């Protein structure tokens, strides 16, 4: 049972992550003020991915889980990406 009870994450870590999340939020709002054309959406998505990465890794303890958890998460996200991506073979070429 020891495997599950390891890793009590200290308060400090959480607060640091929280501050990072707030900063990233500010950044994404700030970037949105500039017109970068199609790049805007990708920057916004990039920052959102970074933020969710932090939430998943630390708040949700994914960092401390086994490979099984990480691989499963990866496949779920990959499938979603594929679902979105394959649609564009229709949408972009219609």
């Amino acid at each position: 049972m020891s495997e599950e009870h390891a890793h009590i994450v200290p308060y400090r870590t959480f607060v640091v992550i929280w501050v990072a999340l707030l900063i990233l939020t500010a950044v994404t709002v700030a970037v949105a003020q500039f017109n970068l054309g199609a790049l805007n959406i990708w920057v916004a998505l990039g920052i959102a991915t970074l933020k969710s990465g932090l939430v998943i890794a630390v708040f949700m303890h994914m960092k401390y889980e086994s490979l099984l958890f990480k691989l499963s998460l990866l496949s779920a996200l990959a499938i979603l990406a594929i679902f979105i991506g394959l649609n564009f073979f229709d949408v972009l070429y219609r």
Partner: protein
Amino acid sequence: MSEATPSASGSRGFFGEGHYPDILGWIFSTDHKRIGLLYFWCILAFFIIGVILGLLLRLELFAPGETIMGPQTYNAVFTLHGVIMIFLFIIPGIPAAFGNLIMPIQLGARDVAFPKLNLFSWWLYISGAAMAVTALFTGGGPPDTGWTFYVPFSAQTSTNVSLAAMAVFTLGFSSILTGLNFVTTIHRLRAEGMTWMRIPLFTWSLYATAWIQILATPIIGITVALLFAERMLGTGLFDPSQGGDPIMFQHLFWIYSHPAVYIMILPGMGVVSDIIPVFARKPAFGYKAIVVSSIAIAFAGSLVWAHHMYTSGMSDMAVLVFSFLTFLVAIPSAIKVFNWLATLYQGSILLDPPLLYALSFILLFTIGGLTGLVLGAAATDVHVHDTYFVVGHFHFVMFGGTGMAFFAAMHYWLPKIYGRMYDKVVATVAWGVILVGFLITYISMKVVGMMGMPRRYYDYIPEFTNLNQLATVGSWVLAIGLVLMFANLIHGLFRGAPTGTNPWGGASLEWQVPSPPPTENFDADPVVTHGPYDYKKAGIL
């Protein structure tokens, strides 16, 4: 079913135990075998309703024009037939019934990982079924959209599509919970010594299936929810007059519903992979290849959905990509077929009913799969899309494939669960009748489809009459076979001769526990020392 008195061979196994008496002991039980049986009987009931509706469809099509019902009724009947068969019979079919009954035992577990959740998903199944039935009698009457619910028609028709959509949502939720329960069980509850490469192929197939259930089912959830919102709130995401795109509905629908056909077939393939070695007294040939092909089907099957949409108006580029991917997914299926045949080679084959049904699975699934290739090729699909050729294809794979596997599983595992044996001669005769009826019915459909008869046609031009009549007559033969099979099986389960622990000579764990198994399956946690098809080490050879 609670008064089912199982084996005379002493213990009544899990039938005799439980917290509540009678019916409550069933509908509130968290025992995987009781839940499995609840599923089994409910699924069977819906199957019988479904086939009777199929029979009615064939009667109506016996001659052009009105035969026994009007067009609106006909449209409601095929919608209902499709919805029941897909969402209430074939998707939950093998996993929820036989998966629940057998999979934990095959792993050497006492139950699934989340027994209460398991019970909850049965309740969701029943609620979804109740909603589907209610939809027939309320609102604007039974839905008339076909099981595919295509917009804009489904957003406009005055029939009770909204409630049917919610029923599908609920059933999807139930399927998801079963899936996540199974994945967790297989990861966490394997007995000591049950390494990944010692898991029986049936359980492996459930593992692959469960991942599809988890990752694809939510998409149908959101799709029908959007249809609901479109009808109720006018959200118009698929309504061209509001900037929406009806073809996107089809994409979302098939993103789930194509993987769903592999939810249907993979467990069936698992059943066959488990049965053939036992009756051939030979280990499954290419165990690893079969495992890998299951996973490959689950994955690649998620990439081909738009092969249902070649004529829909989507881009030619999409046709190219999806047609290509569709052909890739056929290869793992072919690998399995060859492996099954190779398992028979140099074996010692006993033609008992479970094997007969499994062999007819191979034949019929092959025919269905090969016609799937006709559909997968872009040019040929344009001709046969939405014709009876497609109807023929999916009855071959679903009924001839999964249906036969379901029958095989019934004849293979139910004696274990009930501790009694049916009459093997009658079962064999019924098998023959079913096979003949099946071929007559559905080959006629394929031919008439090649000639161009569109599906969902209440009426047809005179040229198509002969083949339609042949199909209808075939459905009568099929009906006789089915009645015979069910009567014999059910009679056997309740009145037949007691079976021992291992009537077929299987080497996997379920054949080491008593028939019926006790509530927590094993007296002591088992330790697995050999593979599921190692007949030498199991002492059978």
